[in-house]
């Protein structure tokens, strides 16, 4: 046996170990917070935005990332007081015949000064005309930059507006083809943003038109600084914001698709605010000191849409049978943990347009099986259910929901393949109508029953919008148009009741739930605007 001097061995190993070890111990103690971190806010969002222009999309991720941070609207809607408030327009007036709307614009509103564009003038009527004409007129140089403008096209605002003129640099007049009860409300939505006409002209000159939606310039409280997909978006405070510079110097959207990771990052303080904590995590959040929850009304609908352009889903009897095969109670319990209302119709019960007299399809697998056989669907029939793998306000866990439906359908002899897509990819593929069925939903933009029906079920939306069922029923569409033209609420109510009966009969989509949605934040963060009918806004947010 060799005799060794133990001391030396100790020295080598311990000193080496110590070199790394002491560093760790020293770093592990909490450092004093850097003042710079106090002036910025990290919002952990749930996915990649498609671009930074709300006009071109209805995806709430895109809206959250741009509508209320980068841009302003002419008029704002305050959901607490339920009143309109001046935005870029200081006042507005509708003529007695309802055909002319006069808007008086705010002066000295500065556009963003960014690394890619330096504005030379402030906001005026040209910008309003430029922004509205972009989605309104095919001849507009930027109209073809985006494939479509789903919100305005499904609301048919492009057809409603006859002409927009500037009577002076700060006075815009909009002429309508027919009176519209909801036009002013629609101006307050996330989609009615004001872009910079000067930026547009500049991009047109340098032939980089696509850049307008990717590198945005607006008048909003924050300007766009940087976006790295799957990582983060960086916004900085607009120093000359007309309503006073934001209390935050920086706003970061930390893109964190996994809900459990967002939750953990909130607990460790890496996120100041997180999007959509899911119901199963509520208990942890409620008990945690230093964290508060904010909730938002259930102004949304989660549904299961069949691609009605694809046999056998084109047959109403097949769709009805499939509806009967689904156990909605279990879904509400296991997916929503009771944080949702069962959906009896597409319109939630809180709305005046909700029809309480519909006969519902009760869960009845035996009957479903018989009906499927009668409709010619043999046992062993295979279908796909597509499900996005991120949480949405209306659906905390579409994959789990898909699993439950898969089990339900297995009981009636149908084999289901669940296809799970990333959000942006899913939306592209859905627009191409490649699916059999999809678990998706809709959040309302304005407090009007029409907003639940037209964007997701009308014929126009089947072509270019969010009608994921591809369903087009002329009778249903006529009812919607009649309702929109009418000023009388009772008449409208009656028309919406009829429309819902048609839906209940045809089942292009199976309504599942109206989910409450939540936002969780650190206690030192105040005034995050998280309310129904609006994308998230950090305009007034403070961090103490």
């Amino acid at each position, binding site marked *: 046996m060799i*005799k*060794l001097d133990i001391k030396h061995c100790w020295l080598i*190993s311990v000193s080496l170990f110590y070199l790394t070890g002491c560093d760790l111990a020293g770093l592990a103690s909490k450092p004093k917070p850097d003042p*710079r971190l106090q002036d910025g806010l990290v919002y952990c969002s749930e996915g990649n935005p498609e671009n930074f222009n709300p006009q071109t999309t209805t995806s709430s991720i895109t809206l959250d990332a741009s509508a209320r941070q980068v841009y302003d609207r002419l008029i704002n809607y305050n959901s607490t007081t339920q009143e309109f408030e001046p935005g870029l327009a200081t006042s507005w007036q509708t003529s007695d015949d309802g055909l002319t709307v006069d808007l008086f614009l705010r002066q000295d509103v500065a556009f963003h000064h960014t690394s890619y564009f330096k504005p030379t003038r402030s906001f005026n009527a040209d910008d309003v005309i430029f922004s509205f004409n972009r989605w309104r007129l095919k001849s507009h140089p930027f109209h073809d930059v985006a494939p479509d403008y789903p919100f305005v096209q499904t609301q048919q605002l492009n057809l409603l507006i006859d002409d927009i003129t500037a009577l002076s640099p700060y006075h815009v007049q909009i002429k309508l083809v027919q009176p519209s009860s909801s036009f002013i409300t629609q101006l307050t939505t996330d989609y009615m943003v004001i872009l910079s006409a000067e930026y547009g002209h500049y991009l047109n000159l340098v032939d980089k038109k696509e850049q307008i939606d990717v590198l945005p310039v607006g008048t909003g409280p924050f300007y766009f600084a940087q976006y790295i*997909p799957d990582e983060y978006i960086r916004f900085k405070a607009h120093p000359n914001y007309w309503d006073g510079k934001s209390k935050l110097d920086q706003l970061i959207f930390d893109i964190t698709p996994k809900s459990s990771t967002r939750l953990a990052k909130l607990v460790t303080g890496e996120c100041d605010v997180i999007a959509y904590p899911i119901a199963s995590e509520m208990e942890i959040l409620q008990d945690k000191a230093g964290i508060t929850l904010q909730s938002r009304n259930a102004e949304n609908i989660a549904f299961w849409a069949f691609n009605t352009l694809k046999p056998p889903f084109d047959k109403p009897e097949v769709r009805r049978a499939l509806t009967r095969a689904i156990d909605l109670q279990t879904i509400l319990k296991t997916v929503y943990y009771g944080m949702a209302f069962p959906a009896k119709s597409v319109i939630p019960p809180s709305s005046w347009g909700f029809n309480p007299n519909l006969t519902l399809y009760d869960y009845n697998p035996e009957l479903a099986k018989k009906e499927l056989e009668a409709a010619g669907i043999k046992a062993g029939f295979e279908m796909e259910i597509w499900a996005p793998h991120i949480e949405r306000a209306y659906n905390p866990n579409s994959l789990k929901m898909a699993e439950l439906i898969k089990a339900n359908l297995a009981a009636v002899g149908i084999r289901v393949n669940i296809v799970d897509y990333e959000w942006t990819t899913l939306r592209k593929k859905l627009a191409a109508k490649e699916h059999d069925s999809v678990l998706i939903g809709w959040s309302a933009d304005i407090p009007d029953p029409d907003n639940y029906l037209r964007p997701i079920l009308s014929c126009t939306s089947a072509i270019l919008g969010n009608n994921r069922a591809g369903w087009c029923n002329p009778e249903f569409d006529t009812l919607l148009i009649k309702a929109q033209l009418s000023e009388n609420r009772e008449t409208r109510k009656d028309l919406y009741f009829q429309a819902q009966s048609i839906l209940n009969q045809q089942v292009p989509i199976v309504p599942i739930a109206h989910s409450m949605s939540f936002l969780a934040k650190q206690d030192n963060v105040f005034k995050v605007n998280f309310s129904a009918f609006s994308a998230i806004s950090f305009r007034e947010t403070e961090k103490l």
Partner: protein
Amino acid sequence: MFIYLIRRLNLLITTLFVISIISFSLGHLFPGDPVINFSGHPSLTYSEYQTISQQLALDKSYFEQYLVYLTRIFHGDFGVSFGSQKPIVDDFFRVLPASIELSFYALVVTLVISLPLGLWAGIKNNTLIDRVIFSIATVFNSIPIFWVGLLFILIFTLNTGWLPMSGRLNLLYEVPTITGFLLLDIGLSELPNKGYVYLDALHHLILPTITLAVLPVTLVIGMMRSSVIHVMGLPYIKAAQTKGLSSWQLISRHVFRNALLPIIPQFGLLFNTLVTSTMITEVIFSWPGIGHWIIEAIYQRDFPAIQAALFIVASMMISINVLLEIAHMLVNPLMRKEFNATK
């Protein structure tokens, strides 16, 4: 010697060839149109489609297509990503430094910890110290790395709040990318109070680095230990001892060096473990490197990116392995002798 080199190069080229074939066939095997899969442009007009189809020779035989594909690869053209619509090579080199940085620190930690421990365990063979070190190494060797990572997050992040759990730096610090290596970039940036930023970056580094180092550390401890035991039993150690060398001299001059030499070629193996573990670690700690990028590409069905990632990562690993082997042969005369003898 020459023949040896030829053999190694042959191995390299054959493997690269097979990988390129696989990567090429993926373009056809992925669902969807090969023109779109190869180019990465999801919506093409008819004339664009025709042009690209001709450029890629997709209207010709598979063999010709493959040749065009190879030419493109040699020019570094892997098409554009579905997701970002930027050239994949750009995306790849944007995320690569983060992975290299992480692996490099893990490698340093590995060597600093495992070589002394392995040496110590080997010298004190069959004593309590040896058993303790060796059992701990075996335990950590058997634990899957993703579990270690989660465990660390649970202990050091969620329960104690000592360390952050994701990313390379607090996002509120805006460090311009110059080299892509964060610690260098912080130094090159013009931020005031860099101390805070460095501290934050180091905080973010600790957990991923340790998680990543766990497996290599245990492997190297094992290798080093058995190599030391082997060397210690050799006659020249006894001879050196009888000459009256102190233990310190004996270990530093003879045991350490001679024990290290045979395990150097196994570092190639270590490298493979490191690359695979880096990907897993990156996903756990949301570290914006290659692994994170590939996983996102898979979720987004970004076929051109998956295809390119497969080719680039696989070729990098094979090339480095072969280079390591050749380098080892050049520095270790014993290897050459063995090779000549068995020829």
